[in-house]
Each structure stands twice: as C-alpha cells, then as structure tokens.
C-alpha cells in the first residue's frame, strides 16, 4: 500500500492541478464509478483542435483525484487527436504505481481517462477495455 501513497501522488492529491470548472467549456463530461461512487467531471476548452484549457471537479479517493490532476496537466496544450490517442498505459506510467494486481483501484485510476475519452468522442460510458 505504501506503494500507492507515494509522495508525488499525495502531492497531486493535496495540491491538485487544474481543479475547478470552466465558464464556457467546449466539452463538459462527467463519469461515475458505480462501485465506489467516485465522480470526475472534466470541462474542456477546445480551440483550433487544441485543448487550450481543461479543469476537473468531482470527488473520490486519492488515487482517482491524483490521476485526474496528472492527466489534465499532461493533456493541456495537446491536440484533440493526441488526447484521443492517449493510452491507459501512458496514464498508468504517469501514475507510476503497480495497479495490475488491484482491479478495484485500477478503476479509480482510470476514471479520469474514461471521462476524457467519453467526452472527446462524445459517447456515453466507455468500458475500461476500450481505453
């Protein structure tokens, strides 16, 4: 478990980047993890096919919140195409904790990416396997 709660994860959890909402988002999408009730909403501002700004809100555990913080930091300024191609593996690399043996916590970690993809593709809930 100390594996999960590493310094940089706690740092993102306590001092999240891009936390909040946008006045006039191009895309706003929310996803819930029904197993534990975690929610992540992403507000995304797209200009010239580039993600100019992105904010996250919602509530959840340290893993899901830190993941949302890291993901928004990473994705801001990228093109929509790049963001759409951002993979589960890349996010897990960013988070850097071994979640392969912990399917419950994996869901927490992937919630923000699920929200991003569903928002960008304009579809409803996506399965983890599709990320």
């Amino acid at each position, binding site marked *: *478990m*100390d594996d*999960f*709660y590493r310094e940089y994860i*706690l740092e993102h*959890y*306590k001092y999240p980047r891009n936390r909040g909402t946008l006045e006039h988002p191009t895309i706003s999408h929310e996803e819930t993890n029904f*197993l*534990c*009730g*975690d929610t992540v909403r992403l507000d995304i501002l797209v200009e010239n096919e580039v993600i100019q700004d992105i904010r996250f809100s919602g*509530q*959840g*555990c*340290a*893993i899901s919140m830190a993941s949302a913080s890291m993901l928004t930091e990473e994705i801001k300024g990228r093109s929509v195409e790049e963001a759409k191609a951002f993979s589960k593996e890349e996010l897990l690399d960013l988070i850097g904790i071994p979640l392969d043996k912990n399917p*419950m*916590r994996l869901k*927490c970690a992937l919630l923000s990416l699920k929200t991003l993809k569903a928002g960008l593709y304009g579809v409803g809930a996506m399965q983890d396997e599709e990320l």
Partner: protein
Amino acid sequence: MKNAVQTFPIFDVLTLRRDFPILHQQVHGNLLAFLDTAASSQRPMQVIECLRDYYSRCHANVHRGVYKLSEEATLAYERSRGKVAHLIGAASPREVIFTRNATEAINLVAYAWGSANVREGDRILLTMMEHHSNIVPWQMLAQRVGAHLDYVRFDGEGRLVLEDLDHLLTERTKMVAVVHQSNALGTVNPVPEIARRAHEVGALMLVDGAQSVPHMPVNVQELGCDFLAASGHKMCGPTGIGFLWGQRHILDAMPPFLGGGSMIKVVETDTSTYADVPVRFEAGTPAIAEAIALGTAIDYLNGVGLEKIHHYEHELTAYALDRLGQVGGVTIHGPHTVEARGGTLIFTMEGIHPHDIASILDGEGIAVRAGHHCTQLLHRVLGVPATTRASFYLYNIPEEVDRLVAGLEKVKKLLE
C-alpha cells in the same frame, strides 16, 4: 490513556483463534487483522475438515440412491437440516429449506409466496436500512404485480422510527420485511414488536437474519415472524449454502420457486404434482457438502455458545466505540451505545475517502470494507456516498481494535 485491554474473560479467545488457520498469516508484512466478517466470516478447521472428509469418504447424491453412500449422504444432509431447525427454534426441520444464501431465500419468498399472495395495489413494507437483498426481490415482485413499496425511516442514532408504522401499515400491506441486525449501522431492530404490528393488519413478517443468526441466539418463536433468511458463509460455514425458515402452514400453501428434479411427485407431459415441503423448494442437486458442513459450523458455534459469543462481541464493540470515538475527525454512523447493537460499525473521516482508508489499513494487514456495503438507500440517508466498515466476530481481539485505531492515525498523517 487507558490500559490496553488484553481480552474479555468470557471464553478463551486466544485458544479459539487457533481453530482458524486463515488468521495466522502475514499480509504486507503484518499479522492479518480480519475485520470484515459482516461481508463473510472465516471458518474453523472443523468445518474445513468436514468438507474434506465428506468428499473423501461419503459423497453421493441425496434422496436418490438406495445404496449405502447415498443413504449416508442423505442422513447427514437431513441431520444438518435438523441442526438449523434446532438453532433457530423451528417447530420442525421440515420448516427449513436449504438455499444458496440469504439472498436466494428472500427471492424464494418474494417469488413463490409473493406471486400467489400479492396483488395490484397491495403494499410491501421495508426499511431504509435494508440490504439490497431485501429490497430488489420485492421491487421485482412489485413491478410484476403492480404493488407498492413503503419504507420505515431511521433516525440519527440509526434506530427505526417506529411511529412510521402508524401510517405505513395498512390493510393493503401484505408483507413486512426487515433486517434483524443491520449490516451497516449494526442496529438490532425490535423484531417482535414489528411482527406484532404487522400481524395486526394481517401482513406477514420476513426477517433478514443474515447478520443476527451468526452472532446471537435467534429464536423464531420469540421473534414471532413468519420467515427467516440467513447465509452459512457469515456463520463459520461454507459459501453456497444458506437457509429459509418459514411457518409450516404458509410454506405448505406456497407454489414452487424453481422447477426440476427432486421437487416433484408425478411428472406428466403437461403438468406435474409437487413434492411436500421442504423438498418442493429444493429443485436440483443441492449443495450437499456445504449443507453438512453448515451443520458442523452450527456445532462449533453451539460449542462456544451463542449467548457467550454475543456477550463477547458486545464487550469488544463497546471497546471499539470508545476507542474510535476518540480519533479526531472520525464520525461513527449508527448507535453510539451497545444497547440493541451488534459488532458492525461504519464510519467516515473528515475529508478522506473510504477507499484510501481501506487501502492504507490494508498495508497494515487490517482488512476492512469500504463502499456502500450493499445499502445504497441507507447511505443516501446518511448523505455520504461511501463509508468504511469494521465488523467483529468471536475470533477478533481488542488488540485488533488498537491496530485499527493506530492505522487510522496513520491515515490522517498521510492524507490530511
């Protein structure tokens, strides 16, 4: 600072713990502290040995063969039914139906009894603290026949608001289904009183005993109910076995639930006649080994004594309420005294998600559950999406409560 409590002089818990092999393992470098019995208990060697012995020496199908093995298996299976009947004070073993678990037992009643007795416009009364097992089967019945569901509320201390019965119990109420001991709040509900009130309007009373039968003496005559459901895996028995008890004359009048082998008398091309109770409700090959091992689990619990187990958990819960109550930022949801309360407690910590609590405790070898514990309605009333739950059984010790408290202090240090 209090002196650390070693144990309570009710039975020798340290010797008893040796019967439970699973408790003696290391988790992430610490001795396992298993505080999630409310989800499923652990089982003693005696039960594990019983399963081994059954498959090694005497497995055969029941109620079917005339050869020795089948007769022995049938005898053992029926002996176990007798042990369940004796445990809960049933008038006869014939009133005990083996099911997969409490969930299946409740579904059996909602389907077989419900379809024959609940009509459009009728009402079914539940409480806001029910487990999903005692909600969803009734919703399915209500949707099938056009009946309605009502809910008794609970107050800030996790006690049912019995005044709600005054207006919710009507002559249209056909069934009152209530949890005996809440798997979240720990509250023990006043079943005899509710049963009496239910009967006054001509309704039947089903008691969800999944959390009470394992932890205290439960007697259906004293409860005054019509049905009782429970699960073997929460009472030191195997998974895949549970039971439904029902009043004989009610069961006798009920149509079957599942159709198939065993539950028939004569099969024609278009219709069949059905076997007597309880076999009418046990279609197909049952969980024979599990039923027999459930009997062994009951022997084990009786060996310690359910009164003593209840008393012991009472002491442990009082200790836990006291210790947890002193951890800053912790809110315990549910009764704060041990009166009419079992050893299950849910809590939240200011600003900290239950998943993080459970994960960090796991790192200390402490197994607790985080989530809604299959009680979403209850959590909606509490106004929180999830809680952390610690639950105790006869094998837990005060030292594990101390470790839980130390673990929570660590959670605070990490995340606050």
